[in-house]
C-alpha cells in the first residue's frame, strides 16, 4: 500500500515566519503535489513536481515555493507566512508520470494556523 507521510498534523506559526511542510512517499512515485483545502473552495493545486528538481506552478502558487531534491520528498515552503495561509495542506503522489488514469494518493494533511 502506498504511504504518503506528512511530517506534522498540526502547526501553529506566527505571521512572517518561514514555514516548511514536509512530505515523503514510499512508492517511488514520479509525481508529487501540494494542495490546500478550504471550506467551500475544495482542493486547490499550489505546486506539483513530475521529477526530481522539477516543479510546476498550480493554480494558486503565490506566497509559496517548493523543493524536490529527492524523488521521495516534496517540501512546501511559505517564505513569510500570512494569516490568509491558514489552511489544511494536503500532499499527494501518483505514478506513472504520463498517465491520465493514475489516482492520487494523499497524506493525512497538515492543519496550519498562522497567527
Amino acid at each position: 500500500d502506498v504511504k504518503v507521510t506528512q511530517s506534522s498534523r498540526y502547526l501553529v506559526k506566527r505571521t512572517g515566519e518561514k514555514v516548511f511542510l514536509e512530505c515523503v512517499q514510499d512508492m517511488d512515485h514520479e509525481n508529487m503535489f501540494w494542495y490546500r483545502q478550504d471550506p467551500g473552495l475544495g482542493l486547490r493545486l499550489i505546486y506539483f513536481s513530475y521529477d526530481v528538481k522539477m516543479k510546476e506552478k498550480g493554480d494558486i502558487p503565490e506566497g509559496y515555493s517548493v523543493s524536490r531534491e529527492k524523488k521521495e520528498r516534496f517540501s512546501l515552503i511559505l517564505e513569510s507566512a500570512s494569516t490568509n495561509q491558514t489552511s489544511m495542506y494536503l500532499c499527494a503522489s501518483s505514478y506513472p508520470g504520463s498517465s491520465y488514469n493514475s489516482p492520487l494518493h494523499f497524506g493525512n494533511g497538515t492543519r496550519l494556523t498562522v497567527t
Partner: protein
Amino acid sequence: AQSVAQPEDQVNVAEGNPLTVKCTYSVSGNPYLFWYVQYPNRGLQFLLKYITGDNLVKGSYGFEAEFNKSQTSFHLKKPSALVSDSALYFCAVRDDRGATNKLIFGTGTLLAVQP
C-alpha cells in the same frame, strides 16, 4: 479549461436508503473522472475512477458511479447507505487535452447518513 461542479454542499439520507452525490464536469477533450472520500481529520482516499468503457463503474465500500456523456455527469451512488458512509466526498477530473499531472477537484459534498 477543465472544471468540475458539485452542486450540493450537503446530502442527507437515512440509513438503508439509496444515496446519490452529484457531479458534473467540463473538459475540452475526453474526461478521466475520479471520486474521493475524506473522513474527519484525514487525507482523501480514492474510491473509483472512470476512464473508458462501461458507463457504470464500481468502486470501494459498495459505491458505484454512473458516467453520462450527454449530461457531462458522473454521479456517485450506493444502493443502501450506512452511517459509516458519512464523510466529505470529492469529484475530480483530468482532461486528456490538458496536462497529465493536473487533477481538478470539486468543492466537496458532505454526506450525512442518519441512523
